[in-house]
């Protein structure tokens, strides 16, 4: 036991002190933040140049209701023919010219409005103009028909079906996006952990083997303790890395939001009945938060930790065995390939089947197979998975972990002292039989 903690501690300190590890830990968030910052900065520069649009309004009421915004400024040209207006607009080097003819009915007006520009206009600008015009003309229509807009606003009913599962325990209001997104994020996180830290273990085992220090260590330590100590040490280093990332990300996002303000979309034009902007944003955020709060969070939390431990140990021990069996990294590839394939299959099955039906038969089967269950099950759990299914899946997973660790330890024990021989699958099977 004291060996075990010695080994884990050394492994941990060694990883933490490793230059590339430190670099990776510090640089990744900085790079990500840098990219996000750069993108937002560039797009804000892009938006900075306000687009000037000349308007010829023959109706006499539309222009007053057009609202200039940060990126679009409307300019009225009075009493002008189309040709004249074109000339004026071009001389002002406007972004474009909006030409509105006068008719009796708003429908006819709508059909005759023209937008003339030098270059083909940006999609977002067109969208904004269109939705503003739609809103103005619709309101005009209401007026003509004698309908009180305020009455419409106040009488509008918004329905959000209040859902409850049959067991009544959870009141899960559907917000599929949040559930799927959250599930995918968890699945991807597991995938990332398994590979990043699994291959770290493999490298560490290979380092001990090729430097031959393992010959010295192995006379004091049981191979099994050496292997598991290593796995624990690396996982602790990984957790430290993730913790640092969490802290850095929250610091960055704090600066980010204070610097740029909340970067939620402000396409207010879509709201025909002109709901207040701020309200719309906050109600969207509230929806997200309430959807989030309605997720089975406790279940997700514990399931993530347990599946993480199971999945991590399953793959980490395989990686350790591979590292012990081979002499160099090139030889490791042939053994890495099937492992990578299995994990990617898990990932794809999750991505393809869970949105369709989280409790469908394929998703169910793959959340029982130990090699894919951590990823697929984590994608499913935000949608609610019966507890008994999780228990069965975890039982299978952890029995497999015991079995795989046992097998890996066997391969590790023999492989670690075997040099100069290109190892094949047949060879490994021979080791397992001995």
């Amino acid at each position, binding site marked *: 036991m004291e060996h075990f903690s010695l080994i884990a501690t050394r492994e941990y300190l060694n990883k933490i002190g490793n230059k590339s590890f430190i670099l990776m830990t510090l640089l990744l968030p900085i790079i990500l933040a840098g990219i996000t910052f750069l993108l937002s900065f560039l797009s804000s520069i892009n938006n900075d140049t306000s687009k000037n649009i000349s308007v010829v309004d023959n109706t006499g009421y539309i222009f007053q209701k057009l609202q200039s915004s940060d990126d679009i400024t409307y300019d009225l040209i009075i009493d002008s023919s189309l040709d004249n207006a074109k000339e004026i607009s071009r001389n002002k080097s406007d972004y474009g010219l909006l030409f509105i003819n006068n008719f009796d009915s708003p429908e006819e007006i709508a059909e005759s409005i023209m937008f003339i520009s030098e270059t083909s206009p940006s999609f977002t600008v067109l969208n904004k103009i269109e939705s503003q015009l739609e809103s103005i003309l619709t309101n005009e229509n209401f007026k003509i028909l004698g309908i009180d807009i305020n009455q419409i606003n106040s009488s509008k009913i918004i329905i959000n079906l209040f859902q409850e599962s049959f067991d009544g325990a959870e009141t899960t209001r559907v917000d599929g996006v949040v559930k799927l997104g959250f599930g995918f994020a968890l699945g991807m996180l597991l995938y990332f952990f398994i590979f990043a830290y699994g291959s770290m273990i493999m490298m560490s085992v290979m380092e001990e083997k090729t430097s031959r220090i393992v010959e010295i260590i192995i006379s004091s330590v*049981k191979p099994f303790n050496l292997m598991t100590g290593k796995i624990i040490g690396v996982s602790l280093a990984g957790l430290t890395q993730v913790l640092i990332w969490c802290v850095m990300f929250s610091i960055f996002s704090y600066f980010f939001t204070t610097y740029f303000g909340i970067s939620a979309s402000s396409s207010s034009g879509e709201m025909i009945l002109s709901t207040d902007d701020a309200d719309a944003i906050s109600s969207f955020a509230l929806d997200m938060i309430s959807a989030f709060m309605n997720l089975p969070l406790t279940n997700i939390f514990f399931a993530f930790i347990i599946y993480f431990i199971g999945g991590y140990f399953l793959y980490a021990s395989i990686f350790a065995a591979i590292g012990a069996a081979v002499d160099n990294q090139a030889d490791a590839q042939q053994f890495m390939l099937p492992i990578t394939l299995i994990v990617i299959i898990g990932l794809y099955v999750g991505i393809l089947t869970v949105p369709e039906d989280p409790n469908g038969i394929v998703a169910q089967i793959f959340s029982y197979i130990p090699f894919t269950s951590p990823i697929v099950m984590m994608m499913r759990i935000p949608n609610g998975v019966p507890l008994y299914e999780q228990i069965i899946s975890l039982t299978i997973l952890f029995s497999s972990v015991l079995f795989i660790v046992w097998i890996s330890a066997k391969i590790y024990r023999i492989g670690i002292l075997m040099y100069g021989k290109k190892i094949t699958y047949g060879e490994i099977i021979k080791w397992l039989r001995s």
Partner: protein
Amino acid sequence: MSNILSIDSVSKHYGNFTALNNVSLNIREGSIFGLLGPNGAGKTTLIRIINQITMPDSGKVLFDNTPLNIEHIRYIGYLPEERGLYQKMSIGDQALYLAQLKGLDNTTAKSELNKWFEKFEISDWWDKKVTELSKGMAQKIQFIVTVLHKPKLLIFDEPFSGFDPINANLIKDEIIKLRDNGATIIFSTHRMESVEELCEDIALINKSNKILDGKLDDIKRRFKSNTFEVGVDSDNPDVLNKELESRYELTRPSFRTIGDNLKVNVKLKNNQNPNDLLKLISQNSKVIHFKEVIPSANEIFINSVEND
């Protein structure tokens, strides 16, 4: 004297390959024991069994008269033939780590290490990395780590490889000192001159079988052919040569001397006495050289393996 290690009918197979076949050995406490054999004979397998790295398929190993168990690990120090150190860890840190793995606590390990580092005059290496050291320097560290926890049984597999003659001597002296302080040493090597110099007992393993073991002196006695090297400055060498030929079996001389005019190896039959030979050659000649041919460990090794 009691045995610190008794190996009783140990066998080990890897698939169809027999690595050790029914090998029995006794190693006396406080002795230096030479474990010899050609490459691939099974020495490393035997050493790994003693270190509990591998388990024998059959047979027993007793350490201090108790069956080998996990507690014994701290009483054994093993310097493997294929040995290395962490490339990226400082010398001091990894020596400390390896010592702790052998069961020493941090403080003891540190003070013991300091003693050895001072003894070898390498105290300023503590913060260096292996990549900054020569092979011989790394070997010194490995030696220190092997003996640091004061094991009762030390197993050295080719301990002198990578050392220059001066450092090899330094290590040899340390090994003898360890033996004098009560440690038992198993010494596996292909350098027969160091076997000759250090070992009291030897065992020879060939093709997974033990083909020879015992006190080195006894083995030499068994292998000697009753042959004497004779070098004389004779008044009449031809006559003496004929006289010798008529009584003994002569072979080509296997030695080098100066100042003699007759050099020959003389093999005595069982009933013949070396004193009679000496009398004969000293009658009309000056005896320059007279010595019994004792087979070297090297000759014993080659002979036994080739005739096995």
